[in-house]
């Protein structure tokens, strides 16, 4: 209904009611009620095809009403990723600050508690196995279970994976499935290509669900590779839930300690971009292979 029609309708209703009131057929209360019904806009029908949506204002936007020095607040916001210059409603955060915080936490929680999707694994054409942790709850509360393969996984790897390769690549969900889905599509091809063009023999990469860093030692003991590298989701912060780490170790055994691993962390689009990380990791693996050592032992040889 157009605006003109709407106005016309109001005029008609009003004159009818005035007529009724003159004849004593309408109480004041009834008149008020009917008038407010007439004033109501046309019922809003949601347009499901619309591209319009509700989003957060830019993070750098200054949210303080009447600041002493608005430019100073804007400059401060550039100096730190901390949530400052965000204003307040009484003593509480403004609605958008509250909702942004909830959104960031929700994204972080989903990264931890949701699994890497089946669709993603199919698209990457990767074998998928599981650690000894049967569920996310168990994975989070019993760290030792995530550090070894389930019996079924150990059996599949023994049957299907190529043995005695130089490098075995593992994709491990760790504490962020989002980090896997966000980075692996660019990182893995870059890494595979880098290693192959350097003439390094690489086993087929596969995925381990509910895995921790140490699970790579268990895999290495089965496939007997020189270097095992895990691309594993980091614990999400509120800033990003997509950060990935690469842990590499040369021939782990029962005497292996944490310091024997070489770690490259902060791989994500806001840190080391995934494609770039592929080239960088190729170089690191070449160093590990030629030094026959990783971690602190590798650094000592440099």
């Amino acid at each position: 209904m157009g605006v003109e029609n709407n106005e016309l309708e109001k005029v008609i209703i009003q004159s009818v009611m005035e007529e009724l009131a003159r004849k004593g057929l309408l109480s004041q209360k009834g008149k008020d009620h009917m008038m407010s019904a007439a004033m109501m806009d046309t019922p809003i029908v949601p347009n499901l095809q619309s591209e319009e949506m509700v989003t957060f204002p830019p993070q750098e936007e200054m949210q303080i009403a009447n600041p002493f020095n608005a430019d100073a607040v804007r400059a401060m916001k550039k100096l730190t990723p901390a949530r400052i210059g965000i204003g307040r409603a009484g003593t509480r955060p403004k609605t958008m600050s509250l909702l942004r915080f909830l959104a960031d936490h929700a994204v972080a929680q989903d990264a931890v508690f949701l699994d890497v999707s089946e669709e993603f694994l199919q698209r990457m054409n990767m074998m998928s196995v599981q650690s000894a942790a049967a569920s996310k709850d168990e994975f989070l509360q019993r760290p030792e279970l995530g550090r070894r393969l389930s019996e079924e996984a150990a059996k599949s790897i023994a049957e299907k994976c190529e043995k005695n390769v130089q490098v075995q690549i593992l994709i491990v969900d760790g504490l962020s499935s989002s980090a896997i889905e966000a980075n692996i599509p660019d990182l893995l091809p870059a890494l595979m290509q880098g290693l192959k063009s350097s003439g390094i023999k690489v086993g087929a990469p596969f995925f381990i669900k509910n895995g921790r860093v140490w699970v790579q030692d268990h895999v290495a003991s089965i496939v007997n590779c020189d270097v095992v590298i895990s691309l594993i989701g980091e614990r999400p912060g509120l800033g990003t839930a997509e950060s990935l780490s690469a842990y590499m170790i040369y021939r782990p055994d029962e005497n292996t300690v944490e310091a024997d691993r070489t770690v490259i962390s902060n791989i994500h689009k806001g840190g080391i971009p995934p494609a770039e990380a592929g080239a960088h990791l190729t170089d690191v693996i070449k160093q590990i292979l030629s030094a026959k050592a990783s971690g602190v032992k590798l650094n000592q040889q440099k």
Partner: protein
Amino acid sequence: MILKAKVYNKIFAFQSLKEVMSKANEEKSGDELVGIAAKSASERVAAKLVLSNLTLEDIYNNPVIPYEEDEVTRAIYDGLNLRIYQEIKSWTVGYLREYILDHKTTGENLLHISRGLTSEMIAAVAKLMSTMDLVCGSKKLRVQSHCNTTLGIPGTLAFRCQPNHPTDSVEGMLASLKEGLAYGSGDAVIGINPVEDNVETVSRLLDTVKNFMIKWEIPTQNCVLAHVTTQMKAIEKGAPVDLVFQSIAGTHKANDAFGVSAAILDEAFALAQRKGSATGPNLMYFETGQGSEVSLDAHLGVDMMTLEARTYGFARGYRPFMTNNVSGFIGPETIYSGREVIRADLEDLFMGKLHGLPMGIAPCYTNHMKADQNDQEMGTLLCAMAGSNFFMGVPGGDDVMLSYQDTSYHDDASTREILGLRPLPEFEQWLEKMGILENGKLTERAGDPSIFDK
């Protein structure tokens, strides 16, 4: 010592006091992980029943970790007032709970018997206490301390302003500090966790904060939460240190892993007295948390709550200015859910206070726990009602350096206004002078960091 109990038609027998102590705990994932938690709800109650009937003397005679083997046990036993202990040693743990809650028992009475209680006795009684029990007990206990200003005055609630920055940028840190001060946060301490644990970084941050305090005449204390040995080197090089910080734990083995010992802390305390920049007499700032011994594999089969009490037993000899509990920071393998962390916070607040410590709480959480902002806010209000001396203050509740969530500057101001609590007196005067606070409430101009950019 009776270690057997009947709960209706079921009989439960325990092998040791250590087993009773762990099984009497409320559910926490760390005790499950170590394999020492009660196997059923009935067994948990049976353990509480056995514990309620034990005397303080039974506990004294059965330390969970032997005196000869552990420096923390030695600190607890050597620091005990034997005369007071003799007077109360025949009390059962169940009686001690009722004594604590009795209307006739004052906070002063509790601080008196505190000197005759070992950490294990304090842990034992807290295991028999429900949420409201813990709040009632904690509320009675008020412990004051003095560094440059006085913390813990009745009717006050203070905050550590925690302006951390992911690359230790001095300018970035100052931006967060200004925002915090503009919300009235920072009277307990301005305390920064550095990324780089070296003398140069630590000294730079200490100097910057101290100069800011002098320029704006802010009555508070400064601290940079590096390893204690780094801070000691900074003091030796002339850096202004009001408070010396260190994380500590409840076993000798865990403290070894932290690179700390009684000898190092003695030296640090002596150095702070000789070359520190504060008035004192309280010059130390400790942080503790249930589960640190589990994550370091240094728990020796003792439950997390008892180890936390032992940590307080170790701390009290140093007369700290503040002891802050961060149980929610350790991780889901020790404390899994919002429910578990709220319980731990209340236990720790009570146990710390009954040790005579000036306690504060960080009702915090990490992103891999099943906890959220609602849990944190409930924990904060409960601990504030229980008379926590202080909380943290983090911009927007999001620590961008340590990647966890803690009480925000907004939460700090809210908690004060909800409960009618005031900043520490000197700091309140300063806030009024700055036009940030009026009659205990934020003014129109509060929350604006640019008031420091004239």
